[in-house]
């Protein structure tokens, strides 16, 4: 009996810190977003005024928000398929019978270790008007002398540069997931197919692709959730304002601007965050459902 009590006590002592921290900063945080989204907040006077659905209605006529949504969705639509495809290709190459695999794998993994701040600085340097990329383009004759592209201040180029940067930095991580999965693919499956006279192409489409389905779903879902919340790189790139001319304004960056900027619209910012959260959770839920149903067969 005494031992049982001790075990219970130890259990509570061991889980309490985790429960407290995660309920405050995740649980209460999420409820607080919901609460704030129905309020007008004045931080200086510490005044929260209930305004019903006004924040939500206001969103319908906010060109800035629509711009941020468009930017973010475009970003996701370009980055997720590209990073998934490249990750698969690199993993397939690394899984083939080549030498120096370990060296290649170590090199390819480096971007994953780099902080978004250092990474963004490096890319801004590379793409600056007199930087290495412009020099290389001039050198190869793609640009006329003096025709340097001002990537960082160009409304056309700013977002693509962030996309390239993001893809460059996320491919290694997803590649490693694919590689781990490929290495566990049972060889017997290929051998059986070879006996049946299957060609390389058939093997790839009928064995490898179906085998990689669950991991691909995971990679795409993680990619979508990540890109929908893109913040750091756009923030650093534009020094927090989503410029030039809102070209790099993402949803979370707009949340930040409304909440912390001169607009002082915390409630409205919370409404945007709340809607994004619901959107992300819905996608995750639907994907998990579909994936589970598939597995029954």
């Amino acid at each position, binding site marked *: 009996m005494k031992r049982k009590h001790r075990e219970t006590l130890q*259990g509570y002592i061991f889980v309490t810190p*985790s429960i407290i921290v995660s309920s405050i900063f*995740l649980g209460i945080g999420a409820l607080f977003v919901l609460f*704030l989204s129905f309020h007008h907040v004045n931080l200086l006077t510490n005044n929260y005024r209930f305004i019903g659905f006004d924040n939500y209605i206001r969103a319908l006529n906010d060109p800035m928000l629509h711009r941020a949504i468009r930017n973010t969705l475009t970003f996701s639509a370009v980055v997720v398929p590209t990073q998934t495809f490249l990750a698969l290709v690199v993993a397939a190459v690394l899984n*083939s019978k080549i030498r120096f695999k370990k060296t290649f794998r*170590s090199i390819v993994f480096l971007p994953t270790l780099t902080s978004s701040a250092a990474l963004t600085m490096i890319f801004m*340097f590379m793409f600056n008007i007199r930087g290495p990329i412009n020099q290389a383009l001039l050198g190869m004759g793609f640009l006329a002398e003096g025709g340097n592209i001002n990537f960082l201040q160009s409304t056309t180029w700013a977002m693509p540069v962030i996309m390239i940067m993001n893809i460059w930095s996320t491919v290694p991580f997803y590649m490693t997931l694919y590689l781990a999965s490929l290495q566990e693919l049972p060889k017997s499956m290929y051998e059986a197919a070879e006996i049946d006279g299957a060609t390389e192409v058939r093997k790839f489409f009928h064995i490898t692709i179906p085998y990689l389905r669950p991991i691909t779903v995971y990679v795409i879902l993680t990619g979508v959730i990540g890109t929908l919340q893109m913040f750091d790189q756009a923030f650093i790139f534009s020094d927090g304002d989503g410029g030039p001319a809102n070209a790099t304004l993402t949803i979370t960056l707009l949340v930040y601007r409304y909440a912390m900027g001169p607009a002082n619209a*915390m409630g409205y910012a919370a409404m945007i965050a709340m809607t994004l959260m619901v959107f992300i959770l819905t996608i995750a839920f639907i994907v998990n459902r579909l994936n589970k149903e598939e597995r029954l067969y």
Partner: protein
Amino acid sequence: MVKKIKPMRIILYLIMILISFTTLYPFLWMIAASFMPLREIVGGSMRLISPYMSLDNYLFIFGVASDFPRWFLNSMIVALIGTIANLFLNTMAGYALSRLEFPGRQQVYYALLALIMIPGQVLLVPNFLLINALGMLDSHTALVVPVMVNIGFIFLMRQFFINFPSECEEAAYIDGLGRITCFFRICMPLARTAIATQAVFVFMSFWNEFTRPMLYIRTRALFTLPFGLQSFQSRDGGQMWHQVMAAATITVLPVVILYFVFNKYFMIGIRMDGDK
């Protein structure tokens, strides 16, 4: 058949070299620029190797006039304290959820399972207000406390202890060791691979964290490296690429060293992530 394979191999090597080159290219420029004087960099004809290379930029960022050494120290302190807190708290919670019988255990597990779903960036506004209300604004506490536990790693440790035989602990109880002593003296050392895996990833996420310091820290002397790096750039107005690149190199270096020294644990960690 043999003849068919060879050109295929060469193509694979070429692809691999191309990928490695693409990966290394930005790092090479970062390192090169970190040794160059600014006029070389903005001159428009910079090469990766040049006779003008020197350690001047490094001497500057580590010099007396610079906040950089302080930011480095801040980053190190925050990352180390945060990592140690995570290791203990996650392991304790994971252990309790797998090995200990107590009322409400299942409910705690389900609650954590729900909380892990909440996307982090979305909580920027409420967490700012919470940190403000708790009086933690503009302190390193704000950088550690909200992330001193990690539900993902709690689950990882839970899984570890589920798969791990409990004979050692039982033997220790018989020898008269107390439950808590037993956990710290027997269980934690036995779980060292799982704990080391946690450690490298947690340290890396603290070291690289940008958003939290940017939101919570106002005093320049309290900045950590990633936010400091950004302010290096914007505050000094002009494009001080030479110093920024030296600072970036130093920022990247500790994690790269960690990666090569503890490579095994990085690989274990990623494999676990894919198993989710």
